[in-house]
């Protein structure tokens, strides 16, 4: 009878924990920035799943620890033993097997979602001599056949320098804003100049490091009109924090209009790094240390100042 009651209570507890975990998993969607791509929805689904599983494990283990701390207290001078059990083969096998299964389940979900992301065109890094015997010439050409580009409608060059973003559009227009047509696959050709940068738009849930001299592409399909922020995600030196750019997802017509406009009349550059160099913010401590990259920017600032 007592055994039965124990199992009954245990069942209720587990069910309760599952309910709470499920609820947390639903909440998880609200912790994220807006979803502006199809990928974002998939990533959020995965995250929600991870939160549910994680919450369940957390509740179970921390719950047991808390319960012990509250109800299994010894009297201050009672130094006798708690229980003699040194282990239990059954239990130990169980709690090796259960996490293994859980982990495999998580791994399966993750692989599944990753295969749906379908975002990356990374050139094969190691060109084994065995693999390219006859096509030795293709190694030189920029469009090596080894890398099958994902089909895309639009192609934009993304150029990261220390410390600004530049975008070159199909009509050769150049801008410091990223404009993307909605619901179309756009292939971003990521190029970094001197150091590694990272392409990251939180609302897209996508991120890719940009390595100088390395052909790396990212295919995005934004599906929500709006203004978002592009942020450099790979630390790139002194003014790293200022490497932001605005991202506009807009209808095809608006996008085309903007392309024409920008080709005729480029917008004046408002570079926050140069602005900060000209008017350094007032800080309590000033180290004023400089690096090769800072010096380079400072020089170009002087040139610009002389120009204007």
């Amino acid at each position: 009878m007592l055994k039965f009651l124990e199992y009954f209570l245990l069942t209720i507890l587990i069910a309760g924990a599952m309910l709470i975990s499920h609820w947390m998993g639903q909440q998880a969607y609200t912790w994220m920035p807006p979803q502006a791509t199809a990928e974002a929805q998939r990533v959020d689904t995965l995250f929600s799943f991870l939160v549910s599983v994680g919450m369940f494990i957390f509740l179970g283990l921390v719950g047991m620890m808390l319960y012990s701390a509250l109800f299994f207290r010894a009297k201050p001078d009672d130094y006798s033993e708690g229980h003699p059990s040194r282990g239990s083969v059954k239990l130990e096998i169980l709690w090796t097997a259960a996490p293994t299964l859980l982990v495999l389940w998580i791994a399966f979900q993750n692989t599944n979602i990753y295969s749906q992301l379908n975002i990356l065109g990374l050139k094969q890094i190691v060109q084994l001599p065995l693999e390219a015997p006859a096509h030795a010439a293709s190694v030189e050409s920029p469009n090596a056949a080894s890398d099958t580009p994902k089909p895309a409608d639009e192609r934009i060059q993304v150029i990261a320098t220390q410390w600004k973003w530049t975008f070159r559009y199909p009509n050769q227009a150049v801008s410091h804003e990223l404009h993307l047509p909605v619901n179309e696959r756009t292939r971003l050709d990521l190029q970094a100049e001197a150091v590694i940068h990272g392409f990251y738009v939180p609302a897209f849930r996508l991120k890719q490091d940009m390595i100088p001299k390395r052909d790396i592409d990212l295919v995005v399909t934004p599906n929500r009109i709006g203004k978002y922020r592009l942020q450099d995600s790979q630390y790139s030196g002194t003014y790293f924090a200022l490497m932001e750019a605005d991202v506009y997802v807009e209808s095809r017509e608006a996008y085309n209009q903007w392309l024409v406009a920008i080709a005729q009349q480029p917008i004046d550059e408002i570079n926050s790094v140069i602005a900060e160099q000209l008017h350094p913010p007032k800080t309590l401590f000033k180290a004023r240390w400089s690096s090769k990259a800072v010096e380079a920017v400072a020089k170009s600032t002087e040139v610009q100042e002389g120009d204007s």
Partner: protein
Amino acid sequence: MSSSPQPKPIHVDESPIDLERLRQKFPPWLRRFLPSGGGSHEDHHGKGMFGVVVFLLSESIIFLSFFFTYIVLRLTASEWLPPGITGPERSTFVILNTIILLSSSVVIQLAERSLSRHHLVKFRWLWLMTILMGSYFLIGQGIEWSQLDFGLRTGLIGATFYILTGFHGLHVLSGVILQVIILGRSFIRGNYNSGHFGVSATTLFWHFVDGIWVILFSLLYIW
């Protein structure tokens, strides 16, 4: 787990693996490197050699990271040899150098064996010969460096070639210095009364340095 606390349990140990029995099954030369169960405080030779082996295994990872770098760069670089550079050549000079270094491993092993058999004089001669062979290798390496048509800054080939051979050369040099010290100490009376751990350790180190050279030679001159 019921709640009858009466008979106080006394936990008895059941250790499934008898390491000492396992150890006895190995041949003596290998047994030297294996721990002899608990309480072998006095076995200084074994303890020391164990430490040296562990250290050398660790040291080999540095070389491994360099080999890895070399292989990756060589596979990925679009232009491994800058125009006009032929790269290191597998000349008879280099091959001779290699043969001398590798055979010095045999010589040093013979030296250690003579010492174990208490042939001190023979030990000194063989030991001196190892020193000479090692020094010959170092000098040969220097000559080869001076004759190459590329420098440290000549592309990736220059950087990797000089770093790899230089780091190895540094190990050869350390080995030779250790050998000289040991040769000097062999003239101290009673130096080997409490074993010859230093000699064994240096011998092992020398084999290690030679082993690394085999890999280096394959990577740099044969590939």
